[in-house]
């Protein structure tokens, strides 16, 4: 499909790029609640939807926002909300409902420093594990993490396509630094759109297909839908006392993401061929990491970079492979070590955390200093 904005270069903030990415991805419904540092997304969508024909509503809180996008998704919309830490916490129960009812929705989390109210205008990467496990019981979602304004735009489009493809909430885990960063980005002529799979009369909550993703009808299509987040069979009929139905449903919700993870996972790497020390990084911190690696490469040091563009599902096999070739892995994070523990699970070599939780971006010099100790 054609992009909505004319092809060319634009000077946007990360938040603005996310709003434009949603519009390009044909987001038809947005519900949100103002919160720093995500408010610019809500504001821009409210203005731009008037031009593009989307439905915008500012709800009374974040709980209402996520519930309303689930309702809109079942009415046929590609639907999104945007928030930050405290609001992301309020949305967790809704996310659980969307996971259980297999509702495609996109949630933008512009991470700020916490816990609690923390520092509203400062960046952090503290919501990595909350994105994975934030609501009760087992869950699998998809979480993407951009490092630039360009990627904030591109990954917002990816988020809609993945949500529709796998019928799952997709979280764009960006941070205040990317959200408020302004830089040049390009809009291409075309945008790739994955449309929801339709199969009239088919079971909406079960499939024999290998990918484990059932087709999705919408309200008003005469399918007499039963949508419930109680344990249900392939046709949505509530079966809360049947252990086999619960086991089958929960296993499929898990495996439809995990079994397809090689198709879902996206990453970026450089200077990896002979790297003895690898920096595994993501989000804004990856920009400082790249600067540090290029500086040390200039000095002939064998350092490389592996950047997670998909945080969840986690690239376990890729990390295992890196761990078998590198001597050490450095993971710089704006949290107390959320991704490094995942790396430790899969890498056979040492994985070392560089943690900074003062609400400031990690400076390249800090990573240079760490790397000098390791090489």
């Amino acid at each position: 499909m054609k992009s909505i904005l004319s092809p060319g270069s634009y000077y946007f903030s990360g938040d603005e790029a996310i709003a434009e990415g949603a519009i390009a991805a044909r987001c038809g419904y947005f519900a949100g609640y103002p919160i720093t540092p995500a408010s610019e997304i809500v504001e821009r969508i409210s203005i731009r939807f008037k031009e593009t024909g989307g439905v915008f509503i500012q709800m009374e809180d974040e709980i209402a926002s996520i519930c309303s996008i689930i309702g809109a998704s079942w009415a046929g919309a590609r639907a999104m909300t945007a928030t930050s830490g405290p609001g992301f916490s309020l949305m967790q129960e809704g996310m659980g409902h969307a996971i259980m009812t297999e509702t495609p929705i996109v949630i933008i989390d512009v991470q700020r420093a916490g816990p609690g109210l923390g520092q509203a205008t400062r960046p952090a990467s503290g919501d990595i594990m909350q994105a994975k496990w934030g609501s009760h019981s087992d869950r699998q979602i998809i979480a993407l993490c951009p490092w630039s304004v360009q990627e904030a735009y591109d990954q917002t489009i990816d988020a809609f396509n993945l949500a529709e493809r796998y019928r799952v909430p997709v979280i764009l885990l960006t941070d205040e630094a990317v959200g408020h960063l302004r830089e040049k980005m390009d809009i291409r002529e075309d945008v790739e759109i994955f449309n929801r799979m339709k199969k009239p009369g088919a079971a909406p909550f079960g499939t024999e297909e290998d990918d484990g993703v059932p087709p999705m009808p919408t309200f008003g299509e005469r399918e007499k839908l039963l949508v419930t987040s109680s344990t249900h069979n392939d046709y949505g009929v509530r079966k809360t006392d049947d252990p086999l139905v619960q086991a089958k449903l929960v296993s499929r919700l898990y495996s439809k993401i995990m079994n397809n993870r090689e198709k879902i996972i996206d990453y970026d790497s450089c200077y990896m061929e002979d790297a003895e020390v690898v920096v595994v990084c993501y989000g804004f911190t990856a920009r400082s990491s790249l600067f540090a690696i290029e500086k040390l490469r200039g000095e002939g040091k064998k350092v490389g970079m592996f950047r997670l563009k998909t945080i969840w599902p986690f690239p376990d096999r890729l990390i295992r492979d890196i761990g078998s070739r590198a001597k050490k892995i450095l993971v710089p994070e704006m949290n107390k070590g959320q991704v490094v523990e995942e790396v430790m699970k899969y890498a056979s070599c040492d994985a070392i955390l560089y943690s900074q939780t003062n609400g400031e971006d990690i400076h390249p010099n800090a990573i240079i200093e760490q790397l000098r100790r390791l090489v």
Partner: protein
Amino acid sequence: MTRDLEQYLRPGLVTAFCPGCGDGILLGLILRAIDELKINIDDMLFVSGIGCAGWIPSPNFNADTLHTLHGRTIPFATGAKMFNPKLQVMIISGDGDLADIGGNHLIHAARRNIDLTVILVNNFLYGMTGGQVACTTPMGAFTMTTTEGNPYRPFDLPKLVDAAGATYVARYSVTQPLALISSIKKAVQTKGFSFIEVLSPCPTQFGRRNQLGSPTDMIKFLMDKCIMKEEAEGLSPEELEGKIITGEFSDGRN
């Protein structure tokens, strides 16, 4: 006539309601209203929350149904209605769901005057979880969490929703079936936010703790307590003591 309404029910289901529950009566009245309006039930979306009353449409109605999180029927319904205004959206849920945990969504939806029909089923307490106090429990009434009597006043829900800006507001008891059918029809036809509080007997949880243990006791209680608004207008405050005023409080024309 009763058999005619079977076309609106999902085949093969058995009732989940206790003996003496008013929710089955209300289920029938809602379907009668839809039948009389000659609306195609396939053009409707029924949204329900958590609690006994949430089971009235889901799984019983043979139409699109969305069973939501506790307290969040109205936001879910708002999303569906805003994106596809052709859907005739009806919310059916309990007092605890819509007015306790979901009270903020209720007044905001009334303020926005979104074209939704809300049928709030008031059984005076939390039924499904075992009979705990709700924001609708009468002062002094006994529940599992007010064993010495409820110390707080209940909400007057029609007043609350009317003040928040709803277009149509009414209160009826399931013991007033004909008036209730006509009210449901009016609510569905109203463009804008429409709200009916329906009083429904719960002998299992409310009755047995408040000297109204049998289904007939609770029905009689409601018949004695409820008087029509027009009748109430001629009565003194003393005569109105303990009465529940029913009728239309906002008639859809404002």
